[in-house]
């Protein structure tokens, strides 16, 4: 039968010997069972009339509760501080990276300015050269006249 559980199936098996026969036919078993019963009764009577206090259990429970909470708080604090530390480290790294980037940008700008300046200087120099070459030589006598009138005065 599929519906039967395992232990019910086992219970359906015929026992080799009935418990009544075992009780009746085995005097040692009978005596042992009687002594067992007497022993349990004696123990139970003693324990039943023994005064009990719940203080110890409560104290243990309180102590366990306190220890559990402390551990939880420590774990939470540890997790929290690790998170804060990680966040701080990331901020520092981001700031350092930003500073490095700014420095690189500044250097690039300086280099560009330097190149611009150099280009301008070169251009002015070439203009100067070109202009000086274009000064008309016909003006030279006028310059001399101006110099002479200056010396006469």
């Amino acid at each position: 039968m599929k519906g039967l559980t395992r232990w019910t199936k086992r219970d359906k098996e015929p026992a080799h010997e009935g418990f009544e026969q075992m009780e009746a036919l085995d005097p040692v078993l009978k005596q042992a069972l009687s002594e067992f019963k007497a022993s349990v009764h004696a123990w139970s009577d003693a324990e039943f009339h023994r005064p009990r206090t719940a203080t110890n259990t409560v104290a243990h429970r309180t102590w366990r509760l306190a220890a559990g909470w402390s551990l939880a708080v420590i774990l939470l604090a540890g997790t929290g501080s690790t998170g804060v530390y990680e966040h701080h480290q990331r901020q520092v790294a981001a700031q350092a990276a930003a500073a490095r980037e700014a420095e690189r940008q500044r250097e690039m700008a300086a280099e560009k300015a330097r190149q611009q300046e150099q280009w301008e200087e070169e251009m002015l120099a070439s203009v100067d050269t070109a202009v000086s070459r274009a000064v008309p030589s016909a003006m030279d006598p006028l310059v001399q006249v101006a110099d002479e009138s200056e010396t006469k005065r």
Partner: protein
Amino acid sequence: MTVKADENAADEFSRVVASHRQQIFRFLLASTRDADLAETLTQECFLKAHRNWASFRGDSSAMTWLMRIAINLQKDHWRNRRLQFWRQTRTNSVDVDEASEWLPSGERTQEQKLLARERVSQVWRAVEGLSERQRTVFVLRYVEEMELSEIAQATGLSEGTVKAHLSRALGKVRTELGGAR
């Protein structure tokens, strides 16, 4: 009128507690070998019985009804212990030898006491090796001396099943005793 009925029910329940508390405690002590646990479960048993006292119809005796509650509480306790494995694993159960120390004081010689203690110890060892159901049936029969029909009612098993459990349990006890004979 209702107040009077409530008072009667309370008185009746108090009488039931007074007459059966020790027996329930003894059954739980024999099943768990832990006096503190037995005391706790006994209190829970009567608390549960008090809550459900109004629904007790008297189909079985009050003792059988209380025993059924005690058996279920015991089962629930062990099931919870297995599930809550992270909780305190230590138990206050005494070992077999300590449990065998208890013998009624009678007119016996020292040798007889020693032999009796040895036999009780052997029975405890056999009981330790029984399944939960076999142990319950064994304790109800040989400690509480309940009738087969009462055991069947308390455990929810058929009488045939109770007999089969008792046969197997006694077979194991006999084997344990035979080892020392």
